[in-house]
């Protein structure tokens, strides 16, 4: 199953979004969180990102979802074409779309595509 790694500025945001995504997509989906800095502050830690990547990696590839700023920059640094890819999508919507697609055992490319479709989701129309 494709893993979904959530990279955010705060540990709470990343963890709760991961819990929400697993709640909607199913607990079998490897959704992991890398939020905040190692000392618990706001920011991004490449060490935490790499740890979350290892925890979500089942060998079928990883989709990274980042919130903004340094999370996006850090996620771009750990991208590996064809294996670890960053989705260009809002954080919560992208996390849920990717997790649901992953739960259907879709391949990496399709999970990324599903996540990125969430960019255009409208809520009022």
């Amino acid at each position, binding site marked *: 199953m494709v893993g979904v790694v959530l990279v955010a500025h705060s540990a709470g945001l990343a963890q709760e979004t991961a819990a929400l995504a697993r709640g909607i997509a199913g607990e079998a989906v490897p959704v992991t969180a890398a939020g905040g800095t190692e000392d618990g502050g706001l920011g991004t830690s490449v060490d935490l990102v790499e740890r979350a990547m290892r925890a979500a990696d089942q060998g079928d590839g990883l989709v990274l979802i980042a919130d903004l700023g*340094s999370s996006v920059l850090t996620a771009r640094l750990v991208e590996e074409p064809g294996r670890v890819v960053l989705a260009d999508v809002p954080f919560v919507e992208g996390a849920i779309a990717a997790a649901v697609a992953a739960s259907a055992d879709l391949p990496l490319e399709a999970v990324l595509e599903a996540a990125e479709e969430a960019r255009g989701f409208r809520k009022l129309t």
Partner: protein
Amino acid sequence: MNAATDGATGSGTGAGTGGGAGAAAGGGGGLDTAFVVAWLEEAAGEIARQRDRLTELDAAIGDADHGTNLDRGFSEVLRALRETPPSSPAQALMAAGATLIRRVGGASGPLYGSAFRQMGRTLDSGEAPGASVTPAAFAEAFGAGVTAVERLGKAAAGDKTMIDALAPASRALSQAVRDGLETREALTRAARAAADGARATVPMTARRGRASYLGERSVGHEDPGAASAALIVAALATAASRTAAG
């Protein structure tokens, strides 16, 4: 070792290999490992001294952590260079880059980290990688570092980012080297271009990062990333004076 650096960062002694002896940056000669280490030390010292100013600039249009983040990152760079003294300019730059990427939680870590890492990679893949590089090779590597920042941050000139200081510095450095100026003068021109570039961000409207959410209200403030970039480039000229005098 540079007393001001040590005093300001509280990081103890400098990086060991950077202390004057044998360093070369004068004349038209090559730039060696000691010069690159001296650059990183001078940059760390200046960032530490101006930490509060950088943070104040960031408080106006950012999240008020730029000075603190960079100071911590560069202190870690000095520590890494002390623990594993580099044996080539490329090695020193790659170590600095990796440390900044790992140790700075804000956007400046990946950005400056990528710049230094790319500089190191470019020097390493040059025709004659070794303990000393020509001013032309250094200028080319600097340009490659700036390009890495542009690519990662998707920023262009005029976006009110560190690129507005780095890109003019790179152009000035390349031009000065092409004109055959002595290394110290070339680095001084790069420093001047970076400082001018940073000041020029004041009237700009931010188009990247947190400040971009402020739109027109970002006008009238110097970009903190451009300000720190100007300090880092200025440290090149300081390091050149220091090592040539050693």
